[in-house]
């Protein structure tokens, strides 16, 4: 555990959230330092509006650059990336994003499982995944994949989650390295 906490090898942190997670994401975003040493990628279940309103909302609160992903954008440390609505967000091994509009997974597109699994493939042990509040079981399979590749698995402490079901499912069915509240997550990200 202690070894894993040494985040020096972490290149990317992927956060997945569903119902009740927007607040948490806003808190994280507004406290993330300017030059974080990792890329921070956020996948949220949201309504299928093509609004870029969410990325704007996040951008105003953050001192780090926030960008809604476009196809084949490079994944760069210091940036915060938001998965666009209605596409799955994948990673190429060369550390660029790919988008995919195939079937919904867990009734969701973007699906957290899809992004976590892809991050595990492309980044192996250098990825940390954080699963937030939600009332859906998305994310659990993804955490299993992250763990299998040696990455770090974190869930929001269900007691602090607006909708505890999603983190609870993960705790029941996947090896979870840490349960964290929001301020612990912020500290974790800023110390990468």
């Amino acid at each position, binding site marked *: 555990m202690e070894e894993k906490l040494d985040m020096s090898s972490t290149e990317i942190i992927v956060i997945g959230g569903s119902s009740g997670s927007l607040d948490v994401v806003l808190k994280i975003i507004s406290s993330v330092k300017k030059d974080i040493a990792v890329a921070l990628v956020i996948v949220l279940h949201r309504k299928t509006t*093509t609004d870029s309103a969410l990325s704007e909302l996040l951008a105003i609160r953050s001192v780090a650059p926030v960008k809604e*992903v*476009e*196809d*084949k954008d490079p994944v760069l440390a210091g940036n915060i990336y938001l998965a*666009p609505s209605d*596409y799955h967000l*994948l*990673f*190429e*091994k060369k550390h*660029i994003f*790919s*988008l*995919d*509009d*195939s*079937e919904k997974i867990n009734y969701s597109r973007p699906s957290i499982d*899809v992004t976590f699994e*892809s991050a595990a*493939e*492309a980044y192996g042990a250098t990825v940390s995944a954080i699963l937030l509040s939600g009332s859906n079981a998305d994310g659990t399979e993804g955490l299993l994949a992250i763990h299998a590749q040696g990455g770090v698995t974190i869930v929001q402490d269900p007691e602090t989650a607006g909708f505890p079901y999603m983190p609870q499912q993960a705790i029941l069915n996947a090896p979870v390295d840490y349960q964290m509240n929001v301020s612990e997550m912020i500290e974790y990200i800023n110390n990468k």
Partner: protein
Amino acid sequence: MIQDEEVEVLINDLFELYGYDFTGYSKASIKRRINRLFILDSFPSFAEFRYRLKFDSTYLKRFVEEITVNVTEMFRDPLFYKTLREEVIPTIGTKPFIRIWHAGCSSGEEVFSMAVLLHEANLLHKSLIYATDINPNVLEKARKGIFPLSQMKQYSENYILSGGKQDFSSYYTANYDRVKFDESFASRMIFSTHNLVCDNSFNEFDLILCRNVLIYFDVPLQNRVFELFDASLSNLSYLALGSKETMKFSGMSNHYRQLGKEKIWRKN
């Protein structure tokens, strides 16, 4: 789970045996699709999967159909269609004859949406819409102009958001759970298979739409396709991409000007 090397083996087989070239597809995406099919068809091992694909040409058909993603809808991204309606169509409408190409048209929802726009601008009679895809199965559907009734509520909402003022249901006749679009639309369409990886330019167009196809390609293949489009566009004509696709990684972008924030570029 199919490994990276195994994906390469399959891609190689497909090319050598059947001439289908998937080498320039996004590795992340195609690997997911191949794994999905492997599980869906319950193959006990990779060897059996490979064997089936090599020796059963009917399975090849299924493979291509399932590996490609055919998700589509009418008036997908309504604001994109609004820009087409208000800016692009009036401009190309001044030409004596209009040629449009939908590359990767899937089951035709996008093509019929375009025909509705042209009809409402009173331009359909002098337009010809070429619609192509790699997957013959979706083209067969597109040709019929028949779509599920269950989707029409959504499509009609999209249509209205795109600036449509008519009663959308006046464009089709419903029959049980399906609707058929007016023959006058299909009469201005030409459907054909065309593989963007290896087939050539076949005409010059005033507008090419290739939406949510390039996301499945890697950057080098995207660039080859941009060259193909460039060779198929006359000066001052338009290229439209999907809402998260971009020309910015291609060397071509300085020959084109983007219309505001929309994913529409006009050739200089």
